[in-house]
């Protein structure tokens, strides 16, 4: 899915959370959206997921204007907030079944995939436990497994690496995300951890005070310090010092 943001702004009262954001993301990329607290990362993700309506500007998917009424596009994406939208009485299995129905993703081999996901995310003994009895990390892993099973083209993950997942869950996320990107999917996640963005992304988008201050291939940013490219750490420091 080709993503285009054309001068997108989002205002909450006097707060301008997104300020004329314009960017293009081709399919098959893993994009890390980096920024400090309040930079507009979650607002950007929610706007892309149609949870928020832009105050100005336009979001386009594959060249077509996207808004909340476009169910066809909404079925091709999934947004996972840092607090997954599960109810306490649901179980990982029932939640996954519900997501598969909502995304109309029942297909041959889905049970095998579901079992692999439950195994890889270490959820098998918890598969019938209610979310009320699961930890935050376990709940996030279950919601993530359901998202992966639903197989949307665009994954919008809000702070997945700060959602309490264990190393096994993080490794599984990276593996499945890389596979999906290899099949033309787009993975867009927010993070504040520079090392993760450096290691696990094709493109890094840096937001500051609602503006995109950098959108570069990660390989460019990882060049040696004396080369024209800059390290992410240095870039973030420069931005902080400049007060951009």
């Amino acid at each position, binding site marked *: 899915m080709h993503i285009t943001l054309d001068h997108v702004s989002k205002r909450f009262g006097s707060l301008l959370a997104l300020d004329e954001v314009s960017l293009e993301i081709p399919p098959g990329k893993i994009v890390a959206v980096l920024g400090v607290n309040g930079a507009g990362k979650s607002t950007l993700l929610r706007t892309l997921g149609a949870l928020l309506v832009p105050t100005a500007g336009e979001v386009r998917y594959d060249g077509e204007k996207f808004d909340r009424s476009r169910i066809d596009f909404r079925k091709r994406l999934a947004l996972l907030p840092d607090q997954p939208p599960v109810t306490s009485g649901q179980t990982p*299995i*029932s939640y*996954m*079944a*519900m997501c*598969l*129905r909502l995304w109309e993703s*029942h297909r041959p081999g*889905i*049970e095998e995939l*579901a*079992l692999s996901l*439950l*195994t890889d995310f270490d959820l*098998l*003994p*918890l*598969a*019938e*436990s*209610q979310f009320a*009895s699961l930890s935050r990390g376990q709940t996030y892993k279950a919601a993530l497994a359901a998202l992966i099973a639903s197989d949307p083209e665009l994954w919008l993950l809000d702070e997945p690496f700060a959602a309490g997942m264990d190393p096994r869950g993080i490794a599984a996320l990276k593996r499945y995300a890389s596979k999906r990107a290899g099949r033309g999917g787009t993975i867009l996640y927010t993070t504040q951890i520079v090392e993760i963005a450096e290691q696990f992304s094709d493109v890094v988008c840096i937001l500051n005070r609602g503006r995109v201050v950098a959108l570069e291939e990660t390989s460019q940013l990882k060049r040696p310090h004396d080369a024209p490219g800059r390290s992410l750490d240095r870039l973030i420091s420069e931005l902080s010092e400049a007060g951009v």
Partner: protein
Amino acid sequence: MNRTERDFRRSLTRRVRAIVDASPEMRAEWQRRRLSLRRLIIIGGAVAFCALFAILAVPFGIGHGCCIRTLLACLVPAREC
């Protein structure tokens, strides 16, 4: 819940249980969680019973000196309280 969803849930649950049963560690974890759920049900049942008793006590005029026999009598409408 439509049929596909229900079938998927049932089938996946069956397969998960088979895998869990085959692994002693996973089975222990699953049973531990099941026990805590059972404990929750017992406590919930006790609270519901007390609440029912409190609700019934007012219209039937049961005082502090009531006993189980009185309570049972109240729960059976044919008998006088």
